[in-house]
Every structure is written in C-alpha cells, then in structure tokens.
C-alpha cells in the first residue's frame, strides 16, 4: 500500500518543500521506467510511516521534473538524497535495503 505520508514534489515545489523545510527531508529521485525504483517503493512507504513527524519523505519523478535532478548531477536512479537545513547530508544510488536507508536517515537526526 502506498503511504499517503510520502510527498510527491515537483521542480517548482522543491525549494519550499525540501530546501526550506524545518525537518530533514529525504528525496527519492525515480521514474516510471525504472524497475529498481519500483523495487524500493514499498520501503520508501514504510520509512514515511516510521519517520512521520521527524523526517519528511518525498519522491520526485525525474521525467516530469528535469531541473532538480540536473542541479544535483543525478545520472542514475533510484538516487536518494538526504537534506537538512537545505544542505545535502548524504546520498546513495541504487536499490538498497531498508537497514541502509534507515542508517542514511539517521545521519540527519
């Protein structure tokens, strides 16, 4: 089940929703043609439930929103970037497991 706590952000909303957020933000850059992106989808949903109120979990479709991925030099998906106070804390590429993603998120807490 897709979690309604995952925010879908666009290029236009990125500065407000991610950069300007008081909470740390995880952005999952994905596209509909990417199998591994689909593979980590359920994990992203779980993270959104578990970190509700502590970390904002977001997804950006790189097909519809080319500007932000371009800005961050993204050339592979899924790429997940963790932001805190508007700055990049860390990023990972590829379909990694939940434990590794939790470790990543904990870097901002």
């Amino acid at each position: 089940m897709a979690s309604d706590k995952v925010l879908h952000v666009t290029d236009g909303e990125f500065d407000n929703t991610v950069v300007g957020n008081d909470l740390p933000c995880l952005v999952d850059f994905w596209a509909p043609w990417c199998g591994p992106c689909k593979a980590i989808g359920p994990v992203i949903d779980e993270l959104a439930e578990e970190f509700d109120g502590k970390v904002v979990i977001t997804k950006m479709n790189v097909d519809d929103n080319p500007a932000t991925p371009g800005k961050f030099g993204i050339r592979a998906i899924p790429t997940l970037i963790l932001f805190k106070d508007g700055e990049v804390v860390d990023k990972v590429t590829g379909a990694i497991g939940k434990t590794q993603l939790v470790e990543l998120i904990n870097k901002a807490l």
Partner: protein
Amino acid sequence: MPVDYQLIIVGGGPAGLTAGLYAARGRVKTLLIEKGATGGQVLLTDWVDNYPGFTEGVSGFELMDKMTAHVDRFGLEKKFAMVSGLDLLGEIKTISLENGDQLSCRSVVLCTGARPRTLDVPGEKELTGQGVSYCATCDGPFYRGQEIAVVGGGNTAIQEALHLTKFASKVTVIHRRDELRATKILQEKAFANEQVDFIWNAQVQTIEGDANGVNQLQIGLTDGSKTTLPVTGIFILIGVVPNNEILPMDQLQTDAAGFVITDTEMETSIPGVYAAGDIRSKNFRQIINAAGEGANAELSAEQYLAGLK
C-alpha cells in the same frame, strides 16, 4: 513440533515466484520473503525477447508484474523483509529476519539470485551513479545525445548496448576478447547498428572523471598498447556474482565462485533445502531456466514434505 510454514522461499525473482506459484497451487503452507519488490534482476532489463509465449517480446518490468500477479491470483503469502540468517541443518529450519523475528519451516527454496559483477578498477566505486552504471534501463535516458561505453560481450551487454542507442549518440562496446559471446541474432543487430562501435581485446583500467562525473576511460589492449576513450557514461555488464551473503556457507555446498550446488532435482547438500535460479551453480542464467528450476525445486520440496508425514 509446530512450524510457522511448511515451506519458505527466499527471494522473489522468476525462480522464487514460480516456486511460489507451484506451492500455492499445491496448497502448501508457504511464505515467500523478498527484500525489495518482486521481480529480481529482470527489473534491470529493458526488453525480454526470449521468454516463450510472449511472441512480440515483453519489457522486463511487465513480465515480472505478470509473474507477481500470477502468484497473487493463487493467494501466495508474501513478506517484504530482509533475511539476516538461515539455519538449515536441522529437520526444522530457522530463518531470521533483520527486525529480529524468526520463522520456522520444514523446507526451504533458496532463490536469492545474483547481482552485476563489478570491474574493480580505480574510479568505479567513486563514480557509481555519476557515470558508472550497472542498469541500462534505469540510467540510459540520462545520456541523451552523449557518447558512452558498454563493457562486456555477453547477451546482457549487447542487448543493453542496443537499448542504449535509443538515447546515446554512440555506444562503444569494450570487450576483452575478439568475438562476442552474445547470441547470434543480437550480434547481427549490433554489427548492423551504426551507432555501435567496438574495441576488441581490451580492458578498462581506470575510470576517470571530475565533479560532473565520468569523462574518460583508460583502456589497455592485449597487445600492450593503451588508449583513451572520452565518454560520459560506462555501463558495466560483465556477468554476475552470487547473492550468498545471507546464506550459511558453512552448511551449504557451493562452487568456487560461491554459487549453491544442487542435484538435478534442485536439492542442495542439505535435505529439504533447494536452490533455483541465478544462485544455483550452473552454466546458463536465463529467465526461463530460473522459472523452470523454481517449479522443479518446489515439486521436490513437496515430495520431501510428503515423505516427512
């Protein structure tokens, strides 16, 4: 002693899903555990042209969607979790999950699969995701109009090199031998495609880049000479390594490369424990034989379970 399940299948690629299909239809109390989403390595593939019945071919994504829908139709129980360890030697097998849960069962089918092999050259790790890729279908669209390289000469390398010509202006295949291992029809397509170039008898020695990612490759040729290839991307498709990290390697018999050895009925060195798909020690890794082995492994497991009663 009561157990949680009669059969647990570890891994949800084509082998695991087919084992699950047979188990669900056989009314065996079964759980399939998958770490991400079902589909396995097929999700990395753009197009599948050799799965029988799909006369016009099928995308890797759609094929695995259908295999998943197929097991769902027969009510296979699935759990999305990471397995942290297995104890397979006793009559009751124990599977530990990363969250600390433990599940017991009488029989196990191992379908943990394999993952792309890395080149292990300088620059590869540092530039992964910034020009170094192992998934053409994921990352191809980021290379529109650019010149890129594919390393490898097997079916996967050539299939994906052809796929990448939809985006890249030029795809150079770098292969360590002087002929391809890929099936003839793929070779014919690659040789006929003007966007595909070849560097034979060659090995990538260094992947170089800057803040913008990969910018060139240092290549060594068999005759001892060296060459530089300017590219913005390199797709490394040189075979697979086994996903055996969670397996009890001290309990299971494996080959030198770490793949699990089975008999012709998919039974491993441990009674009641079977292996199917890419994790199995064998010559050919195809979707169709993963599926076939999954069916065989489950039927063997059913026979084993019947013998316990």
